[in-house]
């Protein structure tokens, strides 16, 4: 590599980073809801990271302090076994987040592979995949998971993978149409004309243009994963571990809802899940503004 090329490379690298930095700044600060989304998610992430050390869970039950209202000792009161609710809230996001990340990563991977493949190859295969996706989309997801639970013993890990596989169709359809419209664009047409290899076109030309699209769908998929996980935990179909959905389930089965004093036991995890989901949706919308300039006001 000679001198000039190196200089040229450095400049383009630095301007690339500048561009990314600029985009990140724009995503976070360009409107109120997007900013709130990033803020809420950061707070939840920080809380999740420090919780095991700063707010350890009560491992033993305390019969003397069952379902107490908030006090200075127990910020949010205690549950039906006398354990501190705040500690459970602080520690309850980790599993949900990990599960959602697994589902979203796997699901996106599947969707991009199938979608890009189908759009580029085209022909009969594309038609068959599209028909299958249509059929798949009309199968109700939640009832299917409930019915499947009668045949398979679910745990969080199996469930995360299963959910990613089940959500292939929606992503496949959106990514396929995105790749199709990219294919029409001049720079892709030129690379086809230059006879570049398919893998080069997919990974060097098309993939970089899908990054924004992938980021947006990643947040949406995480949202869907959290919805499904919490829903199935509430229905008692997933095993009880330590997360906000389980807290709702416990509070519900303990009849907490009928005692106004300890209503925080059910209200606190409900609010946390709402905040997490809303922050994901708002981040997704804000990312959409960044990568889809035509939608900017």
């Amino acid at each position, binding site marked *: 590599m000679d001198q000039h090329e190196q200089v040229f490379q450095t400049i383009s690298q630095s301007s690339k980073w500048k561009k990314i930095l600029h985009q990140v700044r724009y995503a976070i600060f360009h409107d109120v*809801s997007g900013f709130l989304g990033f803020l809420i998610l950061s707070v939840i992430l920080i809380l999740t990271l420090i919780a095991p050390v700063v707010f350890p869970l009560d491992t033993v039950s305390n019969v003397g302090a069952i379902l107490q209202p908030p006090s200075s000792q127990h910020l949010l009161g205690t549950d039906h076994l006398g354990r501190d609710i705040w500690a459970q809230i602080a520690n309850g996001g980790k599993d949900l987040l990990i599960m959602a990340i697994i589902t979203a990563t796997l699901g996106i991977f599947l969707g991009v592979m199938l979608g890009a493949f189908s759009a580029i190859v085209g022909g009969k295969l594309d038609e068959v995949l599209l028909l299958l996706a249509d*059929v798949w989309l*009309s199968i109700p997801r939640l009832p299917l998971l409930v*019915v499947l639970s009668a*045949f398979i013993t679910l745990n969080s890990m199996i469930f995360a993978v299963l959910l990613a596989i089940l959500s292939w169709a929606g992503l496949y359809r959106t990514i396929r149409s995105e790749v199709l419209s990219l294919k029409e664009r001049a720079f892709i047409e030129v690379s086809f004309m230059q006879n570049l290899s398919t893998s080069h076109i997919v990974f060097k030309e098309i993939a970089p243009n899908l990054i924004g699209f992938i980021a947006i769908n990643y947040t949406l998929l995480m949202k869907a994963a959290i919805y499904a996980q919490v829903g199935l935990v*509430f229905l008692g179909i997933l095993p009880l571990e330590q997360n906000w959905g389980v807290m709702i389930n416990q509070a519900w089965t303990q009849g907490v809802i009928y005692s106004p004093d300890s*209503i925080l036991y059910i209200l606190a995890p409900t609010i946390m899940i*709402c905040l997490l989901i809303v922050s994901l949706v*708002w981040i997704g919308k804000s990312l959409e503004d960044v990568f889809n300039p035509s939608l900017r006001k």
Partner: protein
Amino acid sequence: MKINNTVLFIIKRLLKMLFTIWVVTTIIFFLIRLMPSNPVDRYVEEQMVQYGLSAEEARAKASFLFSMDLDKSMLEQYITYLGQVIRLDFGDSLLSPGVPVMAIIAERLPWTLFTVGFGLLLSFIIGISAGAILAYRRDKWYEPVVSGIASFLSSIPDFLIAIFLLILFGVVAWGGGNPILPIELLRGNYSMDVTPGFNFAFIKDAIMHGFLPIMTYTVSQVGIWVLLMKGSTISTLSADYVTLAKVRGIKPRRILSAYVGRNALLPISTEFAMRLGFIIGGSLIIEQLFVYQGIGLELLKATSGQDYPLMQGIFLIMTIAIVISSFLAEIFYAVLDPRIKAKEGN
């Protein structure tokens, strides 16, 4: 030529609908009959081990229970099964022997349709009115506030909204008195002391019992209608024919109803049918929360009680509901907007 295109379009969609139902039916058959440790084999084994029946007796009993002839080949069983599904005959429930699955579904489904339909309709009416107003008043202070609330409501899960509503109406004692609704008395579909039928007491009671589920569906759906209608109206407002109507001096009220409203509503109305199907699938958790005796709660009961005929019947009915409503939505849209047909026709 025009009619030809429409008929072709409808036939294509109809075939797709039947194909979907066939795929789902096949998946169910596969799960029940062919999976390792499937319910039929498990049942036969259980009968042999626990009750000491001979293999033949156990198989005969299972055949009767699952209405499948286990002595025939797998292909024959599959064909018989398809024939039964076409006649909507899912056999008898395992948990309540002697009661056909279809009878249970016929009893439960109307209640789910009632609450889901009522809630969806209410949210649709409120949502599109608010959305249209917001599109007109984009300069007012309340526009970002209402839009923010709408986007918030449309993103939180419906069952969390249900919990909030339950706390708001059924638990918190406003001003020290009793909660607004006596939720303990509102379980089930209607009270014991009213006679079902077309009388005022029954209708009032049914609405009271369905109030919280209906509210839940309304609140969880209203946000999406507001956002959709706002977006759709804004894009219609900038259309040439609206500008022309203004130039011609047509009264704003008439422009709103005849020019903007109708065209903005078109793309949204198809969403309505689509959603109806999907919310029926999502009614599981809501009905469990409010102990509302609809099809969703029945599916949960069937699953926990391992009542396979009932489970497959309900799941198939739910899928059929979704498939039919998306079919209707597509037809409806194609009839209203000829461009779709033109694109699909070739």
